[in-house]
């Protein structure tokens, strides 16, 4: 249906597309990489937001599912020659040795493999609740990483995979990011999205309303893992190199930071905070180097940036418990009501 609201939405997407195209043409390599990272973090933030924010399952295993997506897609896109260069300790399993497929199918397969792993892991641990669930998912995320370190002939172990084709570009990341955004808005509006939120609000009441808790939690977890896998695949082909250490808990923490800063459960909040966090992660890099304050010099401390982010997180949790966006979603109605208020003030 092409009513006014839908037209505005399509217009917004077109404008975003044009802005991105201009940025893509004018930005330097370094800035472009940040632009791409922002798109990827939007996908990752939204996928964790679906699990943590909509459904209220406090999951800390996101990096694990990203790793699955990253490795699955990387093994499919690398050329046979590149694979034989990489796997010099032990040869790669024969089935994968001569496979080489396009990027888009590799991303999708990466997502599906992550979703399957997510579903298999979720089945036993979704019986747990709250902090117990958080610890179990944290454990599973680490287990995936440890397994990848030890499956020499499949993942090349601790050596990682090098020389991935750098397929990821602005077109891929942002098209997928925008599709993810549309998907999430649509999901939230649907009957299933509402059922997810009902589970977050009150499990016992949700179940007594006939909502199959296990089925819905599993669905949310699987969809979230799918997008984590997609994000992981994009990230792998942006970096060009992946190894198990990349997918430590710190990776999950970065995404969790985005979700919490943007208000757990808010889609637009997650988008805005994904962009802000990605840019400031790079912009604040000078904090890691030596800082000359005029009267004293702080020697370079790697990781200083994270101190600032931790402080920021504390401030947000203490003073803005509803995140940057609060409960509101940046929708057309929201903007209209703000505009009306503003007009009233003028008058």
């Amino acid at each position: 249906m092409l009513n006014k609201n839908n037209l505005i939405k399509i217009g917004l997407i077109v404008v975003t597309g044009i802005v991105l195209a201009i940025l893509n043409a004018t930005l330097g390599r370094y800035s472009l990489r940040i632009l791409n990272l922002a798109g990827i973090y939007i996908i990752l933030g939204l996928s964790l937001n679906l699990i943590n924010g909509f459904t209220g399952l406090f999951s800390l295993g996101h990096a694990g599912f990203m790793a699955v997506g990253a490795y699955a897609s990387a093994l499919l896109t690398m050329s046979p020659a590149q694979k034989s260069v990489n796997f010099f300790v032990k040869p790669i399993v024969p089935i994968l040795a001569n496979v080489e497929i396009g990027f888009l199918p590799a991303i999708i397969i990466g997502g599906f493999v992550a979703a399957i792993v997510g579903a298999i892991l979720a089945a036993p641990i979704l019986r747990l609740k709250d902090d117990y669930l958080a610890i179990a998912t944290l454990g599973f995320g680490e287990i995936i990483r440890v397994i990848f370190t030890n499956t020499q002939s499949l993942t090349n172990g601790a050596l990682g995979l090098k020389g991935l084709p750098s397929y990821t570009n602005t077109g891929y990341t942002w098209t997928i990011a925008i599709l993810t955004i549309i998907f999430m808005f649509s999901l939230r509006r649907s009957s299933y999205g509402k059922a997810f939120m009902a589970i977050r609000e009150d499990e016992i009441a949700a179940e007594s309303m006939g909502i199959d808790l296990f089925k819905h939690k599993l669905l949310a977890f699987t969809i979230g893992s799918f997008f984590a896998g997609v994000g992981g695949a994009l990230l792998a082909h942006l970096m060009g190199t992946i190894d198990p250490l990349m997918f430590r808990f710190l990776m999950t923490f970065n995404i969790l930071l985005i979700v919490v800063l943007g208000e757990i459960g808010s889609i637009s909040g997650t988008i805005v905070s994904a962009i802000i966090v990605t840019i400031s992660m790079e912009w604040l890099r000078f904090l890691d180097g030596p800082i000359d304050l005029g009267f004293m010099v702080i020697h370079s401390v790697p990781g200083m940036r994270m101190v600032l982010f931790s402080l920021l997180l504390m401030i947000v949790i203490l003073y803005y418990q509803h995140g940057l966006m609060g409960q509101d979603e940046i929708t057309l109605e929201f903007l209209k009501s703000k505009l009306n208020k503003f007009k009233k003030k003028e008058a």
Partner: protein
Amino acid sequence: MSILRTDSITMKFGGLTAVSELSLNIPTNGIVGLIGPNGAGKTTIFNMITGVYTPTTGNIVFDKIDITGMKSHLITKNGIARTFQNIRLFKDLTVLDNVMIANHLRLKSNIMSSIFRTPDYREKEEHILKKSLQLLEQTGLLEYKDDKASSLPYGKQRKLEIARALATEPKLLLLDEPAAGMNPQESIELMEFVKEIRDAFDLSILMIEHHMQVIMGVCEKIYVLDYGVNIAEGNPEEIQNNPKVIEAYLGVDE
């Protein structure tokens, strides 16, 4: 004709017998009361009927189906809905969403068709929306439909919980202390409301209540529970004059 029958159900928690050998019989279209002092096991009975607990022994038969040990959400699907003693609304969601969620179980669309909004799904959603709005109108909550559930006044929250339970299209409605915290005026309104919905939705109702006025005014049959044991059953008059009931509530001279 009875809609729900329990055959001497017993619920033990370790060494404690919360409910022992209880046999309830709820007639179709009847309003039945369940009373007893605090800790008598009333809510435990609700939890057994709705599948939160599985009775240690005994069977529960609802509408000719044995529902003993069935999962909660399947029991709701079969047609038993409930409200809670301490209101359990989806607080951060709107009143309309609260009721629409209760329709989710009757929605026969899969997740993909609901996300991609296929014409078939849209039609179903339209139907659910219409039904929910109608239900809110019947229960007098229509004007609050876009408000957050937690922003409603207490009495309306109780009503919304009942509306939400009705949205699951139950045959039997379990009300756990619907009049708790209400003033006498509100209690009388509630009595009328319970009778109204029974007729409008063709329901059978089982309610736990402490307000004697409400129980005596609305119930056709009453079960009295004390320490998990059924000590009396009958119509309001019989119950009021039953010495065992008086003893359970007021104690007896030694």
